[in-house]
């Protein structure tokens, strides 16, 4: 940088946001922090799109009988769009590609990821996948995000294109995962041993492994769907000796681990937030790390619990039920450790802490209702009812999305150099938390009453609960809008400059300036302590 620019900026420090300007400097940037923003911008388009689709559906479902959507096909398209947008285009790339990009190098004390250009390339692969997916919506797909054969191989909509888009998005995911694995292995600052890594890094590492190993399987599956549609390959077609259930196996072999791609990084976020605002070391750090890796590993061998009534053998059903319970245990361990961290702490309730505590509650609901679905005889009843819908929204929205929003508040000062507005953020939190529960608690009850999912219309007995759920959905949508506009507004017009380390955290990303300089640290830091070195070492606690 030249002396001239320094004078031009006066007292203002140069940072990654202002060291180069112009739209092109963003679109062609290989800086991991800027790539985070590219992703953030892109995924938010799909978050909003998927959210609007959900609100239209909820409006239709508010009352029994046709309301605003005149034909079932449009409804089917909407739930497909909601699923594809939210899963493939928002949540899967969501935390790994945004927060992972921003935080991994900063937290381990590196200048950037291992392969910065590959990182930018991954982003553009994502964009290409997203554009093809958007184009496919011109003859919108009506298969649901699961693309089950033979419906997906026979329906008259542009399934091939949509599936091809998901195939390309998979590559983006694989490349990002690979990049992060190498970064975490190779670029840790001096003294940053494996057991000094923040839990967010461990979670991201586990996620990256899943991305790299599981995604090729779904890629292959999706290609088979295309082969089936274009060349009549017959792999899923019983009249040619194929088997539609095979498609379900291949699909869930990826799509179950993908749930952990979505939610593990959120676990990591919560594990960062609670110690800082409790002024306590993360309770049982090693167990939290081990449980992340255990979830990632066991997550690979539980896929057929989506298929207890799909016509698999009774033996397989029993096997997969038992293995599924193994996921419950490391998840429970995490929850216990988070709560214990607060014991004898010095707790302050900034917005990120509120989100983290809400996360613990929501994830308890998600986890315990998951137990119902792992229990064979009980799952037979609940399978493909609203109980399942509510369960996975508690997991994905209550888990991954709340984790992402918590993180966007927590690291906001670092990302933008400004402080978020505490009052507005708390108000938004309250609305979206209340709205979320109001949306999905009635759906658990609907499931108990036997209401099937993916229904355009329903018998009148279910109406009251659906109406309540719709009101909740509006509140939930309003809460998110409020929270995001609040953040955007503050980022642009906020007056309060963020200090280097507003929460007095000990982890590395807070030791550099806010926002960080282009290559993160003016000099590479040396690490000499644990990641959660809070509290007084010789404090006598009764």
């Amino acid at each position: 940088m030249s002396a001239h620019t320094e004078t031009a900026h006066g007292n203002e420090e140069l940072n990654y946001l202002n060291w180069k300007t112009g739209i092109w400097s963003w679109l062609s940037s290989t800086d991991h922090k800027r790539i985070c923003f590219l992703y953030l911008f892109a995924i938010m388009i799909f978050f909003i799109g998927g959210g609007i689709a959900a609100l239209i559906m909820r409006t239709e479902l508010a009352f029994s009988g046709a309301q605003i959507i005149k034909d079932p096909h449009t409804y089917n398209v909407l739930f497909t769009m909601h699923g594809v947008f939210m899963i493939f285009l928002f949540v899967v790339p969501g935390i790994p590609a945004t927060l992972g990009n921003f935080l991994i190098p900063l937290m381990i004390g590196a200048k950037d990821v291992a392969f910065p250009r590959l990182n930018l390339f991954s982003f553009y692969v994502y964009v290409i996948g997203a554009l093809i997916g958007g184009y496919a919506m011109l003859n919108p797909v009506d298969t649901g995000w699961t693309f089950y054969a033979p419906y997906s191989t026979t329906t008259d909509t542009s399934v091939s294109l949509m599936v091809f888009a998901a195939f390309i998005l998979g590559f983006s995911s694989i490349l990002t995962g690979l990049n992060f694995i190498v970064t975490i292995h190779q670029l840790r600052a001096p003294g940053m041993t494996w057991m000094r890594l923040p839990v967010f890094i461990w979670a991201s590492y586990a996620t990256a492994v899943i991305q790299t190993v599981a995604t090729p399987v779904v890629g292959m599956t999706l290609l088979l769907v295309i082969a089936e549609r274009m060349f009549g390959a017959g792999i899923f077609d019983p009249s040619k000796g194929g088997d539609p259930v095979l498609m379900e196996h291949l699909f869930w072999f990826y799509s179950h681990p993908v749930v952990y791609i979505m939610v593990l990084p959120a676990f990591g976020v919560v594990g960062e937030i609670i110690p800082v605002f409790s002024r306590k070391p993360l309770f049982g750090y090693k167990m939290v790390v081990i449980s992340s890796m255990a979830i990632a590993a066991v997550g690979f061998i539980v896929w057929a619990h989506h298929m207890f009534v799909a016509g698999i053998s009774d033996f397989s059903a029993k096997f997969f039920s038992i293995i599924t319970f193994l996921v419950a245990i490391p998840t429970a361990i995490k929850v216990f450790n988070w709560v214990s961290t607060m014991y004898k702490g010095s707790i302050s309730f900034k917005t990120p802490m509120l989100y983290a505590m809400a996360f613990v509650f929501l994830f308890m609901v998600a986890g315990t209702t998951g137990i119902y679905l792992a229990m064979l005889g009980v799952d037979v009843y609940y399978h493909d009812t609203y109980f399942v819908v509510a369960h996975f929204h508690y997991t994905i929205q209550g888990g991954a999305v709340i984790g992402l929003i918590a993180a966007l508040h927590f690291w906001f000062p670092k990302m933008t150099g400004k402080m978020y507005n505490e009052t507005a953020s708390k108000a938004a939190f309250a609305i979206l938390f209340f709205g979320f529960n109001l949306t999905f608690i009635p759906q658990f009850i609907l499931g108990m009453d036997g209401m099937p999912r993916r229904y355009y219309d329903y018998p009148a007995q279910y109406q009251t609960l659906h109406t309540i759920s719709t009101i909740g959905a509006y509140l939930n949508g309003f809460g998110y809008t409020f929270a995001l506009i609040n953040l955007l507004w503050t980022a642009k017009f906020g007056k309060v400059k963020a200090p280097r380390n507003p929460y007095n955290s000990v982890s590395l990303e807070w030791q550099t300036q806010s926002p960080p300089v282009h290559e993160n640290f003016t000099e590479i830091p040396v690490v000499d302590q644990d990641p959660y070195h809070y509290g007084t070492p010789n404090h006598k606690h009764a």
Partner: protein
Amino acid sequence: MLGLLGEQGSEFAHKVDFANDVVTIISVICTVAIVGAMLYFAVIYRQRDGKDHETPMIEGNNTLEVIWTVFPTLVCIWVAWLGYDAFVDLRSPPADAMEINVTGRKWAWDFQYKNGKKTTSELVVPVDQPVKLIMTSKDVLHSFFVPVMRTKMDVIPGRYTYEWFKPIKTGDFQVFCTEYCGNEHSKMLARLKVLPKAEFERWLADDSEERKLAALKPSDLGKELYAGKQCISCHSLDGTPRVGPSWLKAFGKEGELADGTKYKMDENYIRESILNPQAKTVKGYPAMGMPSYQGQLSDDEITGIVEFIKTLDGSQKVEVEAVAPKKSAAAAGATPVERGKALVHDTGNLCITCHSLDGSKLVGPSFKGLWGRKEKLSDGSEVVVDAAYIKESIWKPAAKIVEGYGPVMPAMYEGKLTDENLNDIIEYLKTLQ
């Protein structure tokens, strides 16, 4: 115990419900305990003056880690066993189970009994007799879900799957398709009718209707259906328009739809008009004039109707008598409300074809909130819906017509439904508030 899943209709339902109750109680206790602990810590360890106070450097506790690894493991083993145990029952039909073949297709359920009797969208079984459903699909994946029996299984093209249950009470129950199968997925419903044994035997043995229809050539089958399914009420055979267009010389005719586009009455147009009447309405006729026959007619029957329409080319005069009233099958159910519900839902009675139960407007006024409602009639007078009005409307539908509706209800119920039947129906309608 908690009754979360509603009425129990099968022998193993209590086992599923017990497992569900246990896991519910454990979940509530764990959630309350953990969230309670979190909130308790939040309150007593909060920063009181907005400043950090000194905290101990507790990094973990191995005893606690062991406890909260072992304890959830034990709980998981217990509930896993409960689920497993119920599942074993769900998957073990007794050897003496009565087998019924089930075929799923877009978008209806067909049932076939050992003696060849076939039904569509209505599964009739005897009480206290294990029933095993042998299921397959004609097209895509479906799933046969009977909530009251607590069982469900996917229905897959190219292979057979099964499910079974032993009904413990008579009555009329809902069946859903729970695997997404396209446009009419949410209409792919069926009724499960559990009858007393003797009555079931009588029903099963009564194959006069089926045998007669099976022997017919398609166009004659269509002719039978024309009267039997009440097409006759709205479509004439002599060219006079009624609620709907006449079928005389209708096949191959071209014309204009309500939205101005052109149509040609070919096989596909007829099929669509039967299954999804609102998709294309001929200009000059009411848009909501015809109910959907989705799930009420088999493919063969639809073909029969098409063939029958083809014969109406004007070369000879065809006359069909409205069907003679046939006694409705005795309604199952212990209470008047249950019997009334069974009668209203009986596909042979066609009530819910035109009267919704949810307040939405179909061909006739909705049954929801009907009892005690003040209706304005087409002659301008007003009437409060009471027992006398309902009886008159069923036996002599043309006597009083509610404003905004046409005189289209067939006068087919006098003789078909007894006075006692009507009283049961009235008791059921009273519950639809």
